[in-house]
């Protein structure tokens, strides 16, 4: 496989990749540590960044070649008609797995709910609605929930949950951005009453006895998209071979991540100081502990269920959510154009085909993929 996916010609094979220290950056870290990048003829430097805005800006300014990025940020980069935005357009041809977020409530909010957590969405929705109505009646301030970025699946999953519970996310509650690493602190200090975040921060809040897991992202939308491998549109256009080699190496990493016996190595690698810089036990717990229904806790899939496929339907859903959250510019590019530019499944199909024809042995057992 490595031979076919090795870039040829004049393409540059030294690449700078950005990531945020989160569990779902695993494909990048695994591809580096297991040597999948090297196999594909790529010399990759991984850069840990401090925030999503910085990752987005560095990609736009071409200071890095690719990044582990919130899927909605790629879609959003294509929406503006402004001439300055054209040079900053991002695109993706690889999804970095599905699911992985959860909603955690503060101890105070949990107590007010009067139902045991975790609960099903059918129990939780009405209980939360009752708390919100009661606060309104007593003139108490709105409940505030933390998200990691305005344009993120975290925001949209929260909003979807509220809407399904007949709670107006524009009126009845507040949604505020809190960096993941400050989430537990914000919950403890009462700055937020709950939050939606990826791992290991939910597990961290529970371990510190500062919050209670209320719901998984999976409960709101099974197999929801989350992060993608984002590149500048110019990179995808001008260095197609390198782009495909990169996707090939990450596909291997995703496949390996979903395979047997990967957990210990993943926890060991990710915990390193230059990556997540955290306790490897915390990572194991975050990945392994079963949910109350007996299923794996996060339902995080990296490869199965077409988890790597950049699905244009996902981009369409995100656009609808951006509209509802009033995040879109007034004059904007038509939706179909945005989706075509932001999500490029044809590149994924090309790489995937090469991979599966080269190595039948590595073909996933899942018939869907």
């Amino acid at each position, binding site marked *: 496989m490595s031979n076919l996916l090795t870039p040829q010609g004049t393409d540059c094979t030294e690449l700078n990749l950005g990531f945020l220290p989160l569990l779902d950056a695993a494909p990048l870290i695994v591809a580096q540590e297991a040597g999948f990048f090297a196999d594909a003829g790529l010399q990759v430097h991984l850069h840990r960044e401090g925030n999503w805005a910085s990752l987005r800006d560095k990609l736009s300014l071409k200071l890095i070649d690719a990044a582990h990025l919130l899927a909605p940020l790629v879609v959003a980069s294509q929406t503006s008609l402004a001439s300055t935005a054209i*040079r900053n357009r991002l695109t993706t041809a690889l999804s970095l797995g599905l699911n992985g977020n959860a909603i955690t409530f503060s101890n105070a909010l949990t107590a007010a709910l009067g139902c045991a957590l975790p609960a099903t969405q059918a129990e939780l929705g009405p209980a939360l609605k009752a708390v919100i109505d009661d606060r309104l009646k007593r003139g108490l301030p709105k409940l505030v929930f933390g998200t990691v970025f305005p344009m993120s699946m975290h925001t949209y999953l929260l909003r979807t949950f509220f809407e399904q519970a007949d709670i107006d996310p524009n009126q009845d509650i507040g949604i505020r951005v809190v960096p993941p690493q400050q989430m537990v602190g914000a919950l403890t200090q009462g700055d937020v009453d709950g939050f939606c975040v990826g791992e290991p921060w939910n597990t961290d809040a529970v371990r510190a006895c500062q919050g209670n897991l209320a719901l998984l992202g999976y409960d709101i939308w099974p197999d929801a998209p989350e992060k993608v491998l984002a590149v500048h549109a110019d990179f995808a256009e001008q260095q197609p071979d390198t782009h495909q080699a990169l996707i090939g190496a990450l596909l291997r990493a995703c496949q390996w991540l979903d395979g047997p016996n990967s957990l210990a190595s993943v926890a060991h690698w990710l915990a390193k100081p230059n990556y997540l810089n955290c306790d490897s036990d915390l990572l194991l717990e975050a990945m392994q502990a079963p949910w109350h229904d007996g299923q794996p806790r996060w339902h995080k899939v990296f490869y199965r269920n077409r988890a790597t496929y950049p699905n244009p339907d996902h981009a369409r859903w995100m656009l609808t959510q951006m509209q509802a959250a009033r995040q879109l510019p007034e004059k904007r590019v038509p939706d179909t154009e945005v989706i075509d530019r932001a999500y490029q499944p044809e590149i994924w199909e090309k790489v995937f085909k090469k991979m599966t024809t080269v190595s039948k042995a590595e073909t996933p057992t899942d018939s869907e993929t």
Partner: protein
Amino acid sequence: MNILVIDQQLERARILETALTALGYAVVIRSPDEHRIYQLVESFQPDVVIVDAQSPDRDMLEDVALTSDRTPRPIIFFAEDDDDTVIRDAINAGVSAYIVDGLQASRVNTIIKVAISRFEAFQALRGELRKTRDELADRKVIDQAKGLLMKHRQCDEAAAFGAMRKMAMNKKVRLVEIAQDILVLFDE
């Protein structure tokens, strides 16, 4: 003018504070253990926020900029790259300005001025758009009122418009305000 400085390197923040204070700006440095950035922005009402590019707080500021249409603030941040094209690209991309590491006090004032003027140009553009939209909305109200007058007074368009203009001049108010009164009067 109020400037909020958010930097994980307190020493660098202090250098900036000294330089900015000497230039006559009111400066607040966010302490590292302070989580409440929303409250800080609310209470201090900064005109400019200078933030470290690597700070996790940048994502919160994105939210503040997106949600507070009323009091937007230019955001300037430190970059590791001492590269003029990067700075220029960043400014063109809407990031108000980049301050590179090893900043000199003498450069700070110039950069802040450039950032503010870029930001004001952008705001002016947004203001222009809003003005046009308002004018369009006014036009619709005036047309509606004119139609009502024509119907109720059984007069032609020119007469209705003339009557409205005369009322506006007599009362020394804008035409659209007369139009709104007419809509209320005829309960539309």
